[in-house]
């Protein structure tokens, strides 16, 4: 669409909105849903609420960033195989579904008055609120990184965007013969296979351009957390000599000046040190008593994603305490959002809530730029336990990484970006 045509349509829709002001009866009856956070969960929820309610709900999306940056595929930026611009998308594709967008930060909720406060001081009223703030890093776990300037030197790159680009610059600037050490926190963390994918793609870069360099994976866990056989095959095969995997390597702190990871029994010096910190629900989802799973994540009703602590507040994506074997993945967030959007629309417009939701998740891992493997699962609601369970016989992983699945991974990404944002 040309800019001129888009501007004309925008002007026309403003004119229509203006005309509605003269009919306040309809406006007063329209229930309001506010979605906080425009990641895979929040953007999908806003889109489908707009689509399925067809104007019967007022849908507002509050997101602090002006563009969406995809975490899936962002390890390819670290390997030098993609540019961050290829993973960055505008939010204006949601406009056609009637979603009102606010670029800003939500700071506080009043669950009794049902209002949401924004950093600019504005207060918005809601009938139902959907929180999808993703996760926050728990800096208290790594004392020397409590100081924000230290985090400009030792990067996480676990939220795609400027950190991803900055870590790529560090890898480019690293002299050959250097060590890239990355720390994996204890599970649960966002996207279980992603740290190991990162090790592979940086190793591929080293094998092509810096042959005397090495990746050291310092994993706090006792073993590889996903697709273990596939990653071990790559590290013992194509990347032999480039990747050293050390399990049970819990981090106690870092030495920022010396780029050193401090473990229980040894210190590991690096030329580029990448620390993925432990994670918990985003701050706004931890307010009002909602982080009722160990004070870290939020328990929800899996039929509606309503908080078990606060009525009329729904929580999605990485902030929730998932059912057993439900991964913290972008695909899962997108799926939860559709179940939630349908339930919220039903609750506010007098429809029926689906009693038997089914979710799927597919997660593609790049073992190299051209060899990809997947892990997949299907989860069904179990009324007896009121949780989600993997359907027996469903799901599984690729027997080996291959080129065919590289094409499928690219198509998966195009499809989920389109489904979430347009």
């Amino acid at each position, binding site marked *: 669409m040309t800019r001129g045509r888009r501007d004309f349509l925008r002007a026309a829709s403003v004119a229509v909105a203006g005309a509605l002001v003269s009919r306040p009866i309809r406006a007063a009856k329209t229930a309001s849903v506010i979605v906080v956070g425009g990641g895979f969960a929040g953007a999908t929820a806003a889109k489908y609420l707009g689509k399925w309610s067809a104007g019967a709900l007022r849908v507002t999306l509050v997101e602090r960033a002006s563009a969406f940056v995809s975490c899936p595929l962002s390890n390819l930026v670290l390997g030098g195989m993609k540019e961050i611009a290829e993973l960055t998308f505008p939010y204006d594709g949601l406009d056609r579904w009637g979603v009102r967008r606010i670029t800003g930060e939500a700071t506080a909720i009043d669950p009794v008055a049902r209002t949401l406060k924004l950093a600019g001081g504005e207060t918005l009223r809601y009938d139902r609120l959907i929180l999808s703030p993703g996760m926050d890093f728990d800096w208290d776990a790594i004392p020397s990184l409590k100081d924000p300037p230290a985090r400009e030197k030792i990067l996480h790159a676990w939220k795609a965007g400027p950190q991803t680009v900055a870590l790529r610059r560090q890898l480019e600037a690293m002299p050959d013969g250097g060590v890239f050490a990355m720390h994996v926190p204890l599970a649960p963390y966002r996207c279980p296979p992603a740290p190991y994918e990162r090790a592979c793609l940086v190793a591929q870069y080293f094998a092509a351009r810096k042959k005397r360099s090495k990746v050291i994976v310092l994993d706090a866990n006792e073993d590889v957390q996903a697709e273990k056989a596939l990653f071990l095959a790559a590290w013992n095969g194509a990347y032999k000599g480039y990747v050293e995997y050390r399990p049970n390597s819990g981090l106690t702190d870092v030495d920022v000046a010396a780029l050193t990871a401090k473990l229980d029994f040894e210190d590991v010096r690096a030329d580029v040190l990448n620390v993925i910190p432990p994670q918990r629900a985003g701050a706004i989802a931890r307010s009002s008593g909602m982080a009722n799973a160990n004070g870290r994540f939020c328990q929800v009703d899996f039929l509606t994603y309503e908080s078990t602590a606060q009525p009329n507040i729904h929580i999605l994506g990485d902030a929730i305490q998932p059912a057993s074997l439900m991964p913290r993945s972008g695909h899962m967030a997108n799926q939860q959002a559709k179940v939630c959007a349908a339930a919220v629309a039903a609750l506010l417009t007098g429809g029926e809530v689906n009693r038997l939701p089914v979710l*799927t998740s*597919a997660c593609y891992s790049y073992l190299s730029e051209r060899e990809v493997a997947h892990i997949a699962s299907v989860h069904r609601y179990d009324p007896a336990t009121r949780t989600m369970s993997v359907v027996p016989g469903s799901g599984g992983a690729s027997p080996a990484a291959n080129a065919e699945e590289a094409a499928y991974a690219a198509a998966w990404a195009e499809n989920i970006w389109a489904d979430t944002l347009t």
Partner: protein
Amino acid sequence: MPGLAGRDKSELVRLMRDFRDGRRPATIMRQLARGYTDAEIEAAAAYFAAQKTP
């Protein structure tokens, strides 16, 4: 990647059942198809068959 929009419903149902029962080779589709009931496969096929080709 072949699109699904507007494909014949019975063809889509047959494809999903063939994936599920292992009659059609697949990377991920067998694992996903085994998660769904016949009624859900019918519903999904009807949805895709009703979509306009973009």
